[in-house]
């Protein structure tokens, strides 16, 4: 099992040491690729399913649906192309695990198995790949999932951005859980599990030409255990959505559109840490549109809110949980905010790439 191998302070295994960087041969299907799999991927992700080493991994359905009275599968995929590969609070490897785990959790699913597809750019330092894969291994343990199948390709230098990772995930949904972006009802309350904007600002602080010193760290984290705790207390959860690209504003707009309802919130109730607020002010950005990797919204009937809020606050990943707004019958498809001065405004979807202001 993987826990026999100590990946803390990863050092390159001897058979890989002749190649301090990835070369095209590592994706050729020959000896070099076998070395990479044997000494890096297999060691890091070591589990019975991966060790089948067949063209496809065979999953035993009785094992998949074993203990928790689940009756449906959840199935999702995501690709990760973040630059820089390593950033304050995490790296692309953790993102690739938690991103897919969280997408499964947002359907109320218990995540079980992931695939991992790597597209590596020729010239990538082996140490960087080692660091990323080590993080993925730790992330899998923390989230309680296994990498069941994988793939590696190498592209010519200049044709990639170091590492691209695709992960696909399978999870099982317990009976009675019915979570969908279409399920929000007028009167429902909307909760978020803590400060927004950390991940996007951590990445932006490293952007070429924009480097600024900050203590802001990415909030990347697996949300599945927190979701399991919520669902253990009540099945009456209408929607859940993690606020990744496009930030909280995009998620609320998607829910308003899918459920054909309106959403109203008070800007002053949105939790944002002062450092993120300051960086946003400096750059002319709005924290509502900044990406998160460990934040999600929960839409639920008002009579469930206190109980769920208490459950969420008991978890380290939910201790900053607050009620931010409510679902209304008026203006279906539109999200509005009560502004800090007491005015009203529309909170729209972001138009395109976020660009700092000129002056």
């Amino acid at each position, binding site marked *: 099992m993987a826990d026999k191998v100590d990946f803390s302070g990863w050092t390159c295994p001897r058979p890989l040491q002749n190649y301090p960087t990835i070369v095209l041969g590592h994706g050729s299907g020959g000896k070099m690729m076998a070395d990479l799999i044997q000494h890096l991927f297999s060691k890091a992700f070591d589990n019975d399913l991966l060790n089948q080493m067949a063209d496809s991994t065979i999953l035993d359905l009785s094992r998949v649906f074993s203990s928790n009275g689940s009756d449906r599968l959840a199935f999702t995929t995501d690709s990760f192309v973040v630059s820089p590969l390593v950033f304050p609070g995490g790296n692309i490897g953790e993102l690739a695990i938690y991103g897919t785990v969280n997408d499964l959790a947002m359907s109320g699913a218990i995540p079980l198995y992931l695939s991992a597809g790597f597209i590596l750019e020729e010239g990538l330092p082996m140490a960087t790949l080692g660091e990323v894969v080590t993080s993925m291994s730790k992330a899998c343990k923390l989230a309680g999932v296994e990498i069941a199948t994988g793939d590696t390709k190498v592209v010519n230098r200049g044709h990639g951005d170091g590492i691209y990772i695709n992960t696909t995930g399978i999870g099982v949904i317990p009976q009675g859980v019915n979570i969908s972006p279409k399920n929000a009802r007028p009167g429902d309350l909307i909760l978020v599990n803590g400060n927004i904007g950390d991940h996007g600002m951590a990445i932006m602080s490293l952007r070429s030409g924009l480097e600024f010193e900050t203590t802001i760290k990415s909030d990347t984290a697996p949300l599945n255990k927190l979701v399991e705790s919520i669902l253990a207390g009540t099945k009456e959860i209408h929607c859940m959505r993690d606020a990744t690209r496009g930030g909280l504003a995009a998620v609320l707009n998607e829910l308003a559109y899918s459920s054909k309802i309106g959403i109203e919130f008070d800007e002053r109730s949105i939790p944002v840490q002062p450092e993120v607020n300051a960086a946003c002010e400096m750059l002319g950005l709005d924290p509502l549109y900044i990406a998160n990797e460990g934040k999600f919204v929960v839409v639920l009937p008002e009579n469930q809110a206190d109980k769920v809020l208490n459950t969420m606050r008991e978890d380290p990943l939910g201790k900053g949980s607050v009620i931010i707004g409510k679902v209304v019958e008026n203006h279906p498809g*539109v999200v509005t905010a009560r*502004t800090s001065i007491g*005015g009203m405004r*529309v909170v729209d979807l972001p138009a395109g790439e976020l*660009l700092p202001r000129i002056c």
Partner: protein
Amino acid sequence: MKFLEEYRDAGLTKKLLKDLEKLVSHEWTLMEVCGGQTHSIMRSGLDQMLPSKINLVHGPGCPVCVTPLELIDKAILLASRPDVIFTSFGDMLRVPGSNKDLFSVKANGGDVRILYSPLDSLRISRENPDKTVVFFGIGFETTAPPNAMVVLQAKSQGIHNFAMLVSHVTVPAAIIALMESPDVQVDGFLAAGHVCTVMGYWEYEPLAEKYRVPIVVTGFEPVDIIHGIMKCITQLERGTFQVENAYARSVMREGNLPAQTVINRVFEICDRPWRGIGVIPSSGYRLRPEYSQFDAEVRFPEIQSIETKESDLCMSGLVLQGRMKPDQCPTFGKECTPQTPLGATMVSSEGACAAYYRYGRLFQNNKVINQDLNG
């Protein structure tokens, strides 16, 4: 956050608006010059909270919006050249030229890079000695000092593969043009606080006198803007027309003298066309002859002969002169959206049309109107 939350305080806003209500007895039209102020007004919902007798119209102070089409097309030509690395503030990349924008040039292989500081152009120049780095130097008096500094440093560091496509404009000339126009009806101006931080406000004193119009230097937070409006309305009700400073925590009468020195060393005043408005005399900066080696239009004379074609439907010129509100344009929210902009005012983060679309388009008479969910 300190020095910020105080200026977005709901209680203070309510009190000031009450005072303002008592102050105003006539209908007045005020123009906030700067697009940053327009966005702040729309984003905070201040437009719906002001006394109904006060009509705010939005001015030409969005640097992206007024950059002439001809220069956008020249930028697109330069950025498409294999021997050029084109650097720009991000907002310019979405602005529609006659046929396309800089984002599409980038997608088609042009080396277009978004900068946060114009000085990064010099680093890129040093790293790419076989290319010419062309920086799109746009903006009002606020961006002029850093842009001038790039040229000074390029010269002192002997960097030869750097040039600037200059499209600088100035605020006082625009106010004169608006006041000279028979179609523009503005009773008072809220001058742009950041421009005045650089230039001071002494330039506006003869304008207030000549056109008998109060001009109040105003900041950007909601409370700042209400403060500016109050000073302006007080003057209008009393029949005075002076320049006042309602942004004293940032602005002095003389402005930032070292910054002005840098501007004057590198740039000289010229006539400049403004997109949607036309040529305004003495309203722009161009490089002085001693810096012409850094002038992209001198270095690439072939870009001079281009033909431009403006959208027939876009009415941004009227919007930029305060003669039309964005939502009065027949194409607003229909043919023209931030995804399919007909003009720059719908693109820029400081454009009035973009502000209306983003924060206000679904409000009508203080009610939210429903979104079409079938689309």
